[in-house]
């Protein structure tokens, strides 16, 4: 115990003396938390639209003005030449082309149905799909309005109208959805990277050899390395929670204690992973390359940005062995839905298992004697 205390004292001194490291640990993640949620947004806005209106009727003008009033579209050009409009799409200056054919108004009045042509520039697939869907719904909306006006008192005949309400995130605010996940990502990066680099640094400058030739036990050295970053991880997370409250108005619905209990176990797993990487690397450069590779995969395959359900089967398996997946899920459950222990205990068990596994492996692989 006394030895451990001496080691911890040294570690904290070194960490708090390194001002660059402190900035990387505390300032960088928080800046990211302030900036990233605004960019990590699925909502598509400013879709540029070219309209080919050869009808030039009251109806076509009304439709176009309704589209631009929706707030999602910027009507770039309203022309009567298809070729001219298509050139916009080809030059990548327009996302969607909408053609309103000649006789649109007449046909609508007489036959009450008409086909419109929509051409989406699918280079940016998300924008194309979401944009087409938005456009479709604006047109349907317009269509419905026309019908209601025509049918005398009957209302839309036999139509089933679907209304939806968004639970847990009533305003469909993407920040509310993203911030808890991004916070997990940041805590993971700080924990995984710092612990690995710290140990490898001692290898690189040779002080680990000096440690290995002293009576310091293996577990004392490892605990001495992990405990400071465990505490720092907790601190970063707490500051992050505070920022999401102040900046994004996110107040956890569920039990904070449960959140911290999960974090405590989660950090052990992440730090163990960092330790494992450090046992396989000789230089900080090697360690950072390995960590970077895994963090990229972890971040992108965690359900943070894209839903896991829409990944192919094999990718879902990767997501299932990714610790981030579980914590992001738990964060969203506890923070947004107010889930309790009963809802998250299986996640907790998985992360606990990972923590034991990865630390066991790392300790086995860490040698004082070669």
């Amino acid at each position: 115990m006394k030895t451990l205390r001496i080691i911890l004292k040294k570690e904290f001194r070194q960490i708090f003396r390194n001002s660059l490291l402190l900035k990387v640990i505390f300032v960088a993640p928080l800046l990211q938390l302030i900036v990233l949620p605004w960019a990590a947004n699925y909502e598509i806005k400013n879709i540029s639209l070219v309209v080919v209106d050869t009808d030039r009727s009251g109806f076509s003008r009304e439709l176009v003005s309704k589209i631009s009033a929706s707030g999602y579209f910027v009507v770039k050009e309203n022309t009567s030449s298809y070729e001219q409009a298509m050139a916009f799409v080809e030059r990548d200056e327009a996302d969607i082309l909408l053609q309103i054919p000649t006789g649109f108004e007449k046909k609508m009045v007489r036959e009450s149905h008409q086909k419109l042509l929509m051409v989406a520039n699918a280079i940016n697939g998300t924008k194309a799909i979401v944009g087409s869907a938005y456009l479709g719904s604006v047109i349907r909306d317009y269509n419905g309005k026309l019908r209601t006006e025509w049918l005398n008192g009957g209302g839309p005949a036999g139509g089933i109208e679907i209304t939806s309400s968004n639970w847990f995130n009533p305003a469909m605010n993407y920040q509310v959805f993203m911030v808890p996940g991004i916070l997990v990502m940041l805590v993971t990066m700080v924990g995984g990277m710092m612990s690995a680099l710290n140990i490898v640094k001692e290898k690189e400058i040779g002080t680990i050899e000096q440690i290995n030739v002293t009576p310091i036990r293996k577990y004392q050295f490892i605990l001495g390395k992990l405990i400071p970053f465990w505490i720092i991880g907790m601190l970063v997370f707490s500051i992050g929670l505070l920022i999401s409250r102040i900046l994004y108005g996110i107040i956890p619905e569920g039990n904070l204690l449960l959140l911290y209990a999960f974090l405590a176990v989660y950090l052990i797993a992440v730090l163990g992973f960092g330790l494992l990487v450090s046992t396989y690397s000789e230089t900080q450069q090697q360690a950072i390359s390995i960590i970077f590779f895994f963090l990229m995969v972890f971040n992108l395959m965690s359900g943070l940005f894209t839903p896991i359900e829409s990944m192919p089967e094999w990718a879902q398996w990767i997501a299932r062995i990714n610790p981030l997946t579980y914590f992001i899920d738990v964060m969203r459950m506890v923070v947004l839905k107010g889930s309790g222990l009963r809802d998250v205990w299986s996640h907790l068990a998985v992360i606990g298992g990972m923590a034991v596994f990865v630390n066991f492996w790392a300790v086995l692989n860490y040698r004082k004697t070669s």
Partner: protein
Amino acid sequence: MEREKVIYARNLEKRFGDFIAVNKISFEVESGEIFGFLGANGAGKTTAMRMLSGLSIPSSGEALVAGFDVYKFPEKIKQNIGYMSQKFSLYEDLTVRENIHFFSGIYGLSKQEIERRGKEMIEKLGLEKEADKLVRDLPLGWKQKLAFSVAILHEPKLVFLDEPTSGVDPVTRRQFWDLIYDASDKGITVFITTHYMDEAEYCDRISIMVDGVIEAMDSPFKLKQHFGVTSMDEVFQILARQAKRSDN
């Protein structure tokens, strides 16, 4: 009365795959001796030293260090030795005093002992003004003297020094050897590797390793006599010239 054997090695061998780094070496070092462990680069000195200090497990052979078997009790050995590696081994981002406290603390010295010995050491090295400066800011010669003093602060039976004076100026080297003699007077056995032949002359006994084998071992005087030369440098030249895997 025969003196206590601090190191006892019989047919000690270390292989890395097909490469035999240390080829069945046998030797003994007695308590209080200053034992020079010489050899060209790549001769196997550091590997042998790592085996004796419990950092590396031998492939075969036997060895007792400070009375403990290197296979069974490497951690007991570590409690009883000091070690100064080729790479600078103090924490550059800690102060002189913090390094002293850390390294003596992990050997289990009491608070009062740490204070007393630390103060004594700082005075002896004349580092009073630098005690609260980061080690990073000290000149190399001072760093090396400090590293050595820290390595023997827990008063081990034996200290391993791996090229402790490389890159250090002649005056500081001389001062460094004064520290070695002081340690030896206190009864600490010194096991040192060096490339400086004038330093070899300061040792009580020397072994010269060539290609993983100990080619010669005796006092500097007897070695010179045996090869019929006047300096250790010439002895070393004669032996090291046979080396096949030296990189010099």
